[in-house]
């Protein structure tokens, strides 16, 4: 009995040594296959007789990955960091199936500001009726851009409209998210979320004198979000993903003052599958309309951004983004050139022009370096 246990442990150890399971969040099916792999050679385990049973296997450890994001700044834009170099964050990802019914995805950001749980969700997969359910801390499904983790966006900064309304990290909070994939012949998905009112989002909080955002809302004040998104293939090469989003929260719970944001987004992509690794084109636009109820009068804000990105060689991409936001009006243009030595690292040179409220022109040169170690993550779509 003990011998067979140690053979098991040894086989498992061999399997684990064969390399980390590179499947980020791969479902239980392949894991089962791994268990079925026959212990081909009756290997003599190098475990001394009478040894206490070891932990069965490293293969059940969660997939561990790390994304590093580093920046360099030059120029006179006061909205950006005043340092030359900054290590923005190391994002640690831990992902695994919890049991046959659910999986966990946890992303912890370690930065100069401390340690923060970026996302930590339990997702139930085995639900009937095309339903999906998540609980935990997650990035809200407001538009498409907001869901992307900062290191994985093409930009070093955030679009001005997204930053001014939703904060430096974007909209994220703790709560529940349900989604429903409709039985239509094309992709049509509905997301509904109820979360703690969004911390750190200027639209849903009050700015204190020190410039910090104080979250609005107490136990009974939730943030609600709804999103309808659809996808169509025009041709094999070209497709569109678009959606409408609405978020509702409070920014002053005492006075029962609400904030609302409406968003429309569209992402058009082109990629010839025959030349997929060499050429691609993306055009993404998000438009926001936000209303902040105030005593007396409401504040209405319009804003948005649009960017195009063209991949002109296997390892090179270039892009251009335009920003607009009101109250006060601010415009920006970001141009970038990114070199991808492999799909696991990228070095991007970016130029940002901002025209602020006092008709002030700011020009900055930025550098963004990201790298990814650990199992192979999914290519973003």
């Amino acid at each position, binding site marked *: 009995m003990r011998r067979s246990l140690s053979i098991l442990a040894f086989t498992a150890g061999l399997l684990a040594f064969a390399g980390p399971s590179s499947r980020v969040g791969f479902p239980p099916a392949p894991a089962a*296959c791994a268990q079925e792999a026959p212990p081909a050679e009756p290997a003599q385990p190098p475990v001394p007789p009478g040894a206490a049973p070891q932990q069965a296997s490293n293969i059940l450890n969660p997939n561990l990955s790390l994304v590093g994001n580093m920046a360099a700044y030059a120029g006179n834009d006061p909205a950006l960091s005043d340092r030359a170099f900054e290590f923005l964050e190391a994002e640690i990802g831990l992902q695994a199936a919890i049991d046959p019914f659910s999986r966990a995805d946890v992303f912890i950001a370690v930065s100069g500001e401390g340690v923060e749980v970026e996302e930590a969700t339990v997702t139930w997969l085995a639900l009937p009726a095309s339903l999906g359910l998540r609980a935990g801390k997650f990035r809200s499904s407001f538009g498409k851009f907001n869901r992307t983790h900062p290191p994985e966006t093409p930009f070093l900064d955030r679009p001005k409209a997204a930053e001014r309304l939703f904060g430096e990290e974007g909209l994220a909070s703790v709560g529940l998210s349900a989604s429903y994939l409709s039985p239509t012949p094309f992709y049509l998905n509905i997301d509904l979320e109820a979360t703690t009112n969004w911390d750190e989002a200027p639209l849903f909080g009050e700015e204190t004198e020190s410039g910090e955002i104080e979250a609005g809302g107490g136990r009974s004040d939730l943030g609600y979000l709804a999103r309808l998104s659809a996808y169509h293939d025009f041709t094999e090469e070209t497709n569109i993903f678009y959606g409408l989003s609405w978020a509702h929260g409070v920014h002053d719970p005492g006075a029962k003052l609400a904030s609302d944001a409406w968003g429309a987004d569209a992402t058009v992509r082109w990629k010839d599958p025959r030349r997929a690794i060499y050429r691609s084109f993306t055009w993404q636009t998000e438009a926001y309309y936000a209303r902040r109820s105030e005593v007396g009068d409401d504040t209405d804000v319009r804003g948005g951004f649009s960017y195009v990105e063209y991949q002109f060689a296997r390892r090179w991409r270039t892009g251009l983004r335009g920003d607009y936001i009101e109250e006060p009006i601010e415009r920006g243009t970001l141009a970038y050139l990114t070199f991808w030595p492999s799909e696991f690292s990228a070095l991007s040179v970016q130029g940002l022009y901002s025209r602020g409220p006092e008709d002030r022109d700011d020009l900055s040169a930025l550098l963004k370096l990201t790298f990814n170690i650990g199992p192979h993550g999914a290519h973003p779509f």
Partner: protein
Amino acid sequence: MKTGAFVLLIMGALVGFAVPVHAAELHVVTTTSDLASITGAIGGSRIEVVSLSKGYQNPHFVDAKPSYLLVMRKADLLVAVGMELEVGWLPALLQQCRNPKLLTPAHYLDASATAKILEKPTYQVTRALGDVHPFGNPHYWLDPENGRAIARAVEAKLVELDPDGRSAYEANLSAFESRLSLKEAEWRSSMGPYAGTKVITYHNSWPNFLDYFGLVAAGYVEPRPGIPPSPSHTLDIINLITAQQVPVILVEPYFDTKTPDFIASKTGAKVLTFYPSVGGVPDIEDYIDLFDHDIKLLTAALGGGR
């Protein structure tokens, strides 16, 4: 109670009426066209099979399009190449397709389970080596005997999911196997004279094919798997081709032929667009055609002399 039974009966009749006579018993989704071809040959008219990727696509780099979710949502079975070939796109689709069945081994067939896998690393795999697959080379379907192994695994899985079709699946498998055996003899005799021939391939996609026909990979256009050609490595390959008299450079259709063409111009080796999958060009209609096509191309190039 009686009413309930009656309603059920009516509903059942309606559903029965709504389903066309030729409705497939099983909806099968495969990740690649080769698996779809083999699965289709075994399933025949009892199944409906759809491949997510096309034969002219690089199977490592397929976009996880939301439209694939709709195909996967109604699938009874997913057949995948495995060995991490689809690691960049399949996990994301599986998590979002709202078809929890596909997350269970009963409805998920990893076709590599019974295939002969080459190049299983015996060393510590790191990304410094490029896109090395830690479980072995995932392009194993390019050995016709692995095609047979896949067909048998598919047949067993289809019987498991649709026991009523056992005799049909068994008959289809035996027809597939005898056609394959016949063809293998033909392929071996065409390729026989070229055993031991050295070739250069763009990506390391062909170890099973080369192994089966006794060919030898002298080098790769890519300096490391997944890493684009570099000038110094290209020079090394030119020297290698000249020194070892390598007659051909095999290039998968989804790679740029600029570097291979340059190498060819310096060495006189021939560049062949070599198809790793069914549907790479329209006349490769099934798994057997795939070998027919490639072997015709290769024997013409080798037989024509340098």
